[in-house]
């Protein structure tokens, strides 16, 4: 018996879930190799202008976490690198890691944590909304960049009208996915509220079918955006976006009244469905992992993060998840990795 800290754990993906898993393992003294394909840590959090449900700046979270990670002697971070191959061995995986310059490094890992995250659905199938055709029709991550500009002081001269469409690709059996992407209700409320905070004369409309704010403080968060920030929620799925004098005309039915409504907007933000990232698909194939029909990695029955022997998932490669959930899964995966590395027969 005793604690074994010889074998490395491979963490694939340096977003919220990956850095949380690596940090916990590293602080416990377990050797970790964190592989991240971009040249920064923090993943999508770096693109966000604010967060729900407490309007905190994600940078305030990412920076100290990355610093803590860097302090861990046991953690080795490989940026601009990807896992290019793996072979199953007796007690784990032999893994090849390729960096940007083509150099390949080999590693024996006793546990693997997949934290490869999500992508937003490609919206070119929604011609009626004109994403790609009209420059001011953006997906929700593209609009975060606009919000960041406005937050930094580069505000538009005239207060804009911003319309948010929820469930674009989610809960859509015809052109999208049947599932609910789970986090859009909160981040859309966040974006719509932030518009009003940054530009008090701006107008925000949110077109919704219902809002699903199940989570600690989420309901209160969405209600505060409606009641205190006066964002107008219109119940109905927009049918069509038309260009009109350089603006965007939205046609929709207010399903609460049963009347058609029209509104002109300067920006349209599409809360696109969340789907597994390209990296998630690649890792699932490479490690031979179970996936659901949409490509999300499927854990074993009644297992929160265990996918198969010595392989764990964390974050939105398993399903759409908010930052807090990604951190919880990262922590759970770290704990399970420690357990498997110390398995008492």
């Amino acid at each position, binding site marked *: 018996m005793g604690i074994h800290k010889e074998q490395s754990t491979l963490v694939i993906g340096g977003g919220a879930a990956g850095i949380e898993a690596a940090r916990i393992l590293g602080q416990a003294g377990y050797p970790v190799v964190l592989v991240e394909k971009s040249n920064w840590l923090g993943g999508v959090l770096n693109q966000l202008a604010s967060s729900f449900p407490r309007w905190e700046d994600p940078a305030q979270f990412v920076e100290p976490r990355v610093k803590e990670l860097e302090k861990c002697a046991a953690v080795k971070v490989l940026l601009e690198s990807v896992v290019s191959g793996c072979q199953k061995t007796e007690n784990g995986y032999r893994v090849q890691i390729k960096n940007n310059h083509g150099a390949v490094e080999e590693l024996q890992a006793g546990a693997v944590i997949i934290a490869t995250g999500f992508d937003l659905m490609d919206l070119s199938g929604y011609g009626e909304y004109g994403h790609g055709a009209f420059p001011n029709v953006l997906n929700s991550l593209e609009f975060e960049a606009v919000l960041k500009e406005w937050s930094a002081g580069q505000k538009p001269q005239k207060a804009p009208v911003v319309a948010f469409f929820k469930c674009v690709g989610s809960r859509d059996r015809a052109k999208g996915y049947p599932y609910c992407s789970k986090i859009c209700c909160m981040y859309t409320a966040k974006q719509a509220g932030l518009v009003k905070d940054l530009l008090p004369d701006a107008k925000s409309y949110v077109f919704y079918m219902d809002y699903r704010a199940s989570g600690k403080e989420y309901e209160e968060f969405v209600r505060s955006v409606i009641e205190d920030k*006066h964002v107008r929620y219109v119940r109905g799925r927009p049918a069509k976006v038309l260009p009109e004098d350089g603006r965007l005309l939205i046609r929709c039915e207010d399903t609460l*009244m049963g009347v058609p*409504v029209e509104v002109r907007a300067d920006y349209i933000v599409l809360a696109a469905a969340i789907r597994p990232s390209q990296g998630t698909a690649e890792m699932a194939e490479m490690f031979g992992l179970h996936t659901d029909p949409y490509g999300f990695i499927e854990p074993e029955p009644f297992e929160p993060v265990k996918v198969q022997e010595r392989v764990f998932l964390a974050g939105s490669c398993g399903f759409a998840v908010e930052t807090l959930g990604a951190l919880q899964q990262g922590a759970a995966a770290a704990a399970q990795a420690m357990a498997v590395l110390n398995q008492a027969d």
Partner: protein
Amino acid sequence: MNATTSPVNQYFKALQLDETDHSLSQELLQNCGIEIERCLECGKCSGGCSNAHIFDFTPRKIVQMIKVGDEERLLHMDALWCCVACQLCVDRCPSGIDIARIMDYLRERAVARGIPATRPTVELFHNLMLDQVHKIGRVSELYLILNYNLKSGQYLNNAELGPQMFIKGKLNPFPARVKKMDKVRRLFHKKPGQKGEVK
């Protein structure tokens, strides 16, 4: 009737959200302390409404019209004059929105703007009731019914209920007067939103 001018088609003409505003919601907040944006659109008000079966717009829709500031439709709707202020909607509302107060506010607004009630005898009833209060400080059912039936020309309206009500003591031919009539009369000079006693 010309199809393009029928009320049905008018109703389904697209509402221009850009042209709507919060002013009516703001007014209700300032004058009545009602926070319209708290509405969850659940419909518990309409489900409980005692008169919804004769309304053209149910309470939930009325709240919704206030949200988009559709004042014209609100002041011309029939529901304004069939609401009996039974307060069931208020009692049921999970967000504590005083819909009965909203209806009162809208009725006052319609009268102030000279928009006639969709049901003329309702206005007569309201006026006769207020006359009674002005005269004796309370409502005497007997004289209210007599006056109402005479002036509305429906002489035998609900007459079959008279004997039963009389036996139960609901129709007193000698109604008691309120003692401090001057205080009641002063109420009639109160201005909208005015608090405290009127001098």
